[in-house]
């Protein structure tokens, strides 16, 4: 062994750029509103540009829906519900859903590139996670459409009617699939509003719905800002509001929907705790922590943004974690070797910077990846805060970015107490080779989802949703049907 060796550089073999072609997206210069099966101009003739967050260049011009457009979309959905969809058998509905699922698979590459351009997420994730999971959701709920009698909600459960669905910018296509697939399987018609900064994959999905020959008006997709979303929430012709997004906006929606006839489900923020015991499988646990917080740049409502590590192994875990964080490849989201992409918007980047500044001010020890960042676009280097206390803002508030707060605990009781010491309750992770302890901890965690020896794993058959300020209602699985049935 050579005496002069003192370390072995990870990632010494630099990878040449391996970009996916942006041309695959075949983006149009402008997109209208998808109402009653057709793309049409907004009544206001107002448009806005959607940017590529990786270089701040405009991708396409998108219609700004006005109150009148929202009204038109809800009317189209109502008519489609009354005249067609409520009279369509479950088996027929399932046929359309299977078609959509297959078309998503056929156009997977195009969808993945569009998603990465518009959102900034690495192509590896849009290709291997977002798009396949979106197709899987349509496949899964296609199977339920003709079996609702056997879903456990009594004989012949009825749909609610017109569902208004507002989705966030972190998983634009996947959230559209989570909303549309169960709603349509249950027999509802939909008005979907994608997020202002990420409308493109939903508009491509609209093309797919046309290709699938879904009857006109069964799904309407309107683009625009918060005002369009508010108009949809307030519209008297809507029977159900399903919202995924921030707790702040969710609270406003709940207030506006109160005292109306509308059903409501909310999937809001989180401050997930990833709990690491000293007997955890260490290498896989490190990967799980990384996936938990750096997947999708940490723009994940269920992100494992708090790491609770048993004090006896804290030094070793932190050392390995920092080493691994420094290896993350940050850069061009279209590059197949990119691990962490761009922050979705300037506003989100500002929010992340603000909260991380508090972290340093409050006395936490900051480790920031030494990775080089591109000059243009919205970027934030993966960051870990050690020595974080429960009272720090970075331990309490959702950062929604690639920032991990590390806290320690001594006993399982303390781990549970710290994990539950939050207003949120979406997801937690437990890492241990001892099954009995994992179950003991999982039973006591106040969270909608608890993962054991993994994190951020999704399957259409598994229900997902929160408790407390993380919202209510479930998406996915048999439970996901309940949100769209009159039970």
């Amino acid at each position, binding site marked *: 062994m050579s005496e002069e*060796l003192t370390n072995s550089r*990870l990632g010494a073999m630099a990878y040449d750029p391996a970009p996916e072609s942006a041309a695959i997206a075949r983006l149009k210069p402008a997109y209208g509103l998808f109402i009653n099966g057709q793309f049409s101009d907004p009544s206001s003739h107002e448009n806005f540009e959607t940017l590529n967050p990786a270089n701040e260049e405009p991708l396409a011009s998108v219609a700004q829906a006005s109150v009148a457009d929202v009204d038109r979309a809800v009317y189209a959905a109502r008519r489609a519900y009354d005249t067609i969809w409520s009279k369509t058998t479950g088996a027929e509905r399932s046929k359309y859903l299977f078609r959509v699922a297959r078309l998503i698979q056929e156009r997977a590459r195009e969808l993945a590139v569009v998603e990465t351009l518009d959102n900034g997420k690495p192509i590896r994730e849009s290709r291997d996670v977002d798009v396949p999971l979106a197709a899987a959701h349509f496949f899964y709920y296609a199977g339920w459409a003709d079996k609702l009698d056997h879903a456990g909600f009594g004989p012949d459960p009825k749909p609610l009617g017109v569902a208004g669905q507002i989705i966030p910018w972190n998983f634009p296509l996947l959230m559209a699939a989570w909303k549309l697939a169960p709603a349509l399987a249950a027999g509802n018609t939909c008005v979907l509003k994608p997020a202002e900064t990420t409308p493109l994959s939903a508009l491509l999905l609209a093309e797919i719905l046309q290709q699938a020959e879904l009857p006109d008006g069964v799904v309407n997709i309107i683009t625009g800002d918060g005002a369009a979303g508010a108009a949809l929430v307030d519209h008297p012709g809507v029977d159900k509001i399903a919202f995924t997004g921030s707790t702040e906006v969710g609270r406003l929606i709940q207030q506006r929907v109160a005292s109306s006839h509308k059903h409501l489900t909310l999937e809001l923020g989180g401050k997930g705790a990833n709990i690491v015991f000293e*007997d*955890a499988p260490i290498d896989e646990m490190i990967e799980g922590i990384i996936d938990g917080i750096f997947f999708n740049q940490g723009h994940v409502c269920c992100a494992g943004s708090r790491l609770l590590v048993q004090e006896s192994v804290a030094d070793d875990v932190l050392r390995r974690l920092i080493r691994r964080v420094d290896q993350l490849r940050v850069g061009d989201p279209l590059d197949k070797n990119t691990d962490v992409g761009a922050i979705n918007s300037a506003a989100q980047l500002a929010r992340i910077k603000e909260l991380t500044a508090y972290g340093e001010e409050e006395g936490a020890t900051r480790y920031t990846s030494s990775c080089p960042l591109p000059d243009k676009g919205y970027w934030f280097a993966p960051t870990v805060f050690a020595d974080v206390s429960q009272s720090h803002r970075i331990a309490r508030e959702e950062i929604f970015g690639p920032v991990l707060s590390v806290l320690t605990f001594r006993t399982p009781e303390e781990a549970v107490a710290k994990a539950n010491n939050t207003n949120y309750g979406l997801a937690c992770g437990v890492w241990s080779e001892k099954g009995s302890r994992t179950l003991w901890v999982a039973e006591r965690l106040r969270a909608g989802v608890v993962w054991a020896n993994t994190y951020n794993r999704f399957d259409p058959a598994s229900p997902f949703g929160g408790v407390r300020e993380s919202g209510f209602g479930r998406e996915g699985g048999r439970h996901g049907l309940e949100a769209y049935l009159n039970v």
Partner: protein
Amino acid sequence: MSRVSTAPLRLVTSVDRDVQLPRASTLPVIESEVQLRALLAGLSGVDAVGAEARAAKLATRSLKKSTKLAALDLAIAMVDLTTLEGADTPGRVTSLCAKAMRPYPSDPSVPSVAAVCVYPDLVGHARHVLGSSSVKVASVATSFPSGRASLNVKLLDVREAVSAGADEIDMVIDRGAFLSGRLGHVFDEVVAVKEACGSAHLKVILETGELVTYDNVRRASWIAMLGGADFIKTSTGKVGVNATLPAALVMLEAVRDFAEVAGAVIGVKVAGGIRSSKDALRYLVLINETTGSAWLSPERFRFGASSLLNDLLMQRLKQRRGSYVRADEFSGD
């Protein structure tokens, strides 16, 4: 049981992006089976789902252009060109050695491979043909591939191969002893074989396909390393399941951790079923992102293979010319 070094286990606690390598060898002393068991019991478990997911994720890395060219050349230099058949003859070994020294005579910039790997009775012949070339002679000994013989027979096998000129010995561990819990027996055999090797390098074959679980792979890796292995090797190539990416990942994690806590840099060899350049490059990515630069060298990583070499040559030429050539462009040895 005894080992030469006396330094205690040492943990590196500083925060650093790279894998810390020791300045000097500080191998821990294993004096009893109780101590060995305690050490192995202290190793972290492996979560199979997580390990396989990590390997699959790294397999999606895309190597292009100059990275790919450099990686193909490195892979060629890491090949242990192998023939392990009952039908092997001196003539067969002669042509294999010629291929090993000059894999593609039309292009002198193609590196020679790391070693040829043969049965012990053909070591003398291979040594004679290779002469003073940089290509090493490796030999499978210890009643390869099953290892079902007495220790004396195994040691004799090793000593004869070494005295016939083998630079490297590929031994097999006693899987039966491992699976029946006689871990001290496995360790003692590695120690004895290492001693019989003298100055020859020792590669210890774990036969991961027979150990089955990743926990076993990790424990067997540590037994081999503590016993004095210079390399740990996945497989004989003679059973149903040979080298796999997740098994190699677990072994790379083991050599990385061993370097940090025990103070010795151990190599890894993957063998069996690696036929395409794509497969080979995936292993290089695994090294790059698990153990780092110190293992990106034939000194620390090998491919035990035969047909792989021609595919590496094929892809190398394709990268340079932009188009594929006929398979007959390369010699069939």
